[in-house]
């Protein structure tokens, strides 16, 4: 966004509570690599120039990439500045920080979608003998007591952490809800390459059936590794990870799990196959069938005949629980009547219901790729155009009710 604003000669400042790439430096586990290939981190005026376009950046490489971008575009970043509140005024906003106040006509909220771990309420009933953590605090298996680990959640974080912990000799049980399975490599190309080429990642928020639903779909089960292996429930079962349904309740130390595991696996397989069908159709439409390997389908997800429905958390078998159950944004500093009844900012493709306020970097903000590094560019181009029109007084004004309360 800073780059797009600079291109339009709009004077701005980027406030950062820590350092550039702060979250990448402080809230990620050691072995994590980007889920998207190197070539796919395309930012306005900046892309990958190394000799491994299909590789996956490590965390130090990701941090370096973002730091270099900030330098290349000479972003006016003020680090070490924590925003404490944003309030509306007659002609814009007052942004209060621990380093003094800013007055501005427009505000772009780009503080991230993954700030606060979302932990289900049943966690309160976990016996105190069991250590609990989230992917935000998790660094590596050595941090955990020896013994069994229950990982809750099977998106990218949950499956990667489950695999790594299980390899360390701590037997992992994975309790899972809805998840999205994909092969890492399909017909000789990375799945992200196909999704990019076939237009899947460019799908627009106004073209989907139910935008609230797609904004809450968990991240793809993927891992970035040198051998480009597929990480899914079958690969976890192969190494001995035990699968359970969604955690439903904890009664007197007994954790109870949903009996709907088979349907979750079936839904995920069907969804994956629809994506692969779509890729195959795109290949056929573009007459590429002779140029890439033929289609194939993955083995259906294996679910044991009668998965256990309970687990005694007081038996000592489980020593640690990792809640990989997702994150939510932290907008607690935003003193504006722009939230819906579930505490989410109300917006139309990133245009918030308060004049001159914009949101970025949340899942499916404007496009399927909006939460990817690769999605920031197109969203920033669109929203900076809207922002510039607003400053020029040429954009349509929001509904009067919202404007009035924003001024108050």
């Amino acid at each position, binding site marked *: 966004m800073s780059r797009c604003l600079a291109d339009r000669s709009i004077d701005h400042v980027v406030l950062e509570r820590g350092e550039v790439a702060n979250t990448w430096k402080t809230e990620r586990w050691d072995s994590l690599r980007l889920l998207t290939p190197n070539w796919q981190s395309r930012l306005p005026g900046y892309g990958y120039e190394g000799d491994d376009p299909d590789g996956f950046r490590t965390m130090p490489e990701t941090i370096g990439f973002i730091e270099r971008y900030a330098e290349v575009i000479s972003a006016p970043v003020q680090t070490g500045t924590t925003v404490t509140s944003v309030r509306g005024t007659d002609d814009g906003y007052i942004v209060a920080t621990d380093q003094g106040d800013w007055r501005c006509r427009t505000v772009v909220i780009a503080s991230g979608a993954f700030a606060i771990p979302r932990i289900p309420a049943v966690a309160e009933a976990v016996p105190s003998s069991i250590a609990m953590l989230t992917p935000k605090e998790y660094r590596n298996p050595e941090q955990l007591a020896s013994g069994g680990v229950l990982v809750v959640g099977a998106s990218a974080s949950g499956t990667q952490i489950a695999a790594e912990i299980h390899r360390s000799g701590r037997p992992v049980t994975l309790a899972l809800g809805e998840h999205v399975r994909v092969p890492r490599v399909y017909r000789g190309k990375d799945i992200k390459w196909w999704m990019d080429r076939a237009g899947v990642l460019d799908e627009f928020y106004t073209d989907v059936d139910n935008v609230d639903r797609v904004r809450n779909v968990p991240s793809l089960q993927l891992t970035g590794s040198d051998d480009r292996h597929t990480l899914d429930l079958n690969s976890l079962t192969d190494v001995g990870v035990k699968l359970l349904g*969604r955690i439903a*309740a904890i*009664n007197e130390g007994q954790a109870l799990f949903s009996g*709907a595991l088979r349907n979750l696996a079936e839904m995920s397989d*069907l969804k994956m196959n629809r994506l692969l069908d779509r890729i195959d159709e795109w290949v056929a439409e573009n007459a590429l069938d002779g140029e890439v390997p033929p289609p194939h389908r993955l083995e259906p997800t294996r679910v044991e005949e*009668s998965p256990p429905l309970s687990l005694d958390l007081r038996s000592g078998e489980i020593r640690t629980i990792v809640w990989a159950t997702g994150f939510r944004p932290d907008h607690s500093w935003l003193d504006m009547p722009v939230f819906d009844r579930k505490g989410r900012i109300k917006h139309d493709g990133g245009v918030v219901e308060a004049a001159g306020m914009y949101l970025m970097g949340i899942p499916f903000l404007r496009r399927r790729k909006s939460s990817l590094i690769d999605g920031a560019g197109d969203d920033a181009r669109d929203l900076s155009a809207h922002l510039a029109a607003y400053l020029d007084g040429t954009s349509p004004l929001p509904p009067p009710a919202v404007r009035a309360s924003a001024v108050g």
Partner: protein
Amino acid sequence: MSTPEMSATDTPIDNGVNVNALLDAREALSETPEAAKFTWRAKCEWVNGTHSRSTVEGFFGLGEEQKHRAQFTFDADHPEVFASEDHGATPVEIVLAGLASCLTAGIASVAQHRGIQLKSVSATVEGGMDIQGILGIDSDVRNGFEGIKVTYNIDADATPDEIKAIVAQSQKRSAVFDAITNPTNVTVEVN
């Protein structure tokens, strides 16, 4: 009457489900979530032996008392192998019927929403049970089902994967499927 969805050949799809009304209700209730709070009720009278008769008529929803078009009655009893008189289905069979009915209603609704014409839908439901549990022979055996298997035969203008996806989505949205696969706090009081 709302306009039915159209298929690729422009033949109106009609599974007898008014999806537009359901979608309108979803939209309206997401604005007024308190109206979405429903209470379902059944009354049950002991007749004799293991025979009982349940009736349903009123329920609460959309902020007020509602009524079925008529009172519906369900006789329940146990079969003669249990030395009962078999005046009705066993309660566990009523649970299985409830599951199948809920999933089947969901299949019709999801198919209508997806523009898929159903020609026939039939289900077989089986619930395995070791009655050593209910007879108190072995306390390690639970009273309830060991597992439930539902098998659908569906004829529809759709691919096998599209049909599977409808059945999967129906499970995802089914109240009875959720009630059976997840624990529910149950309070039983005596006046």
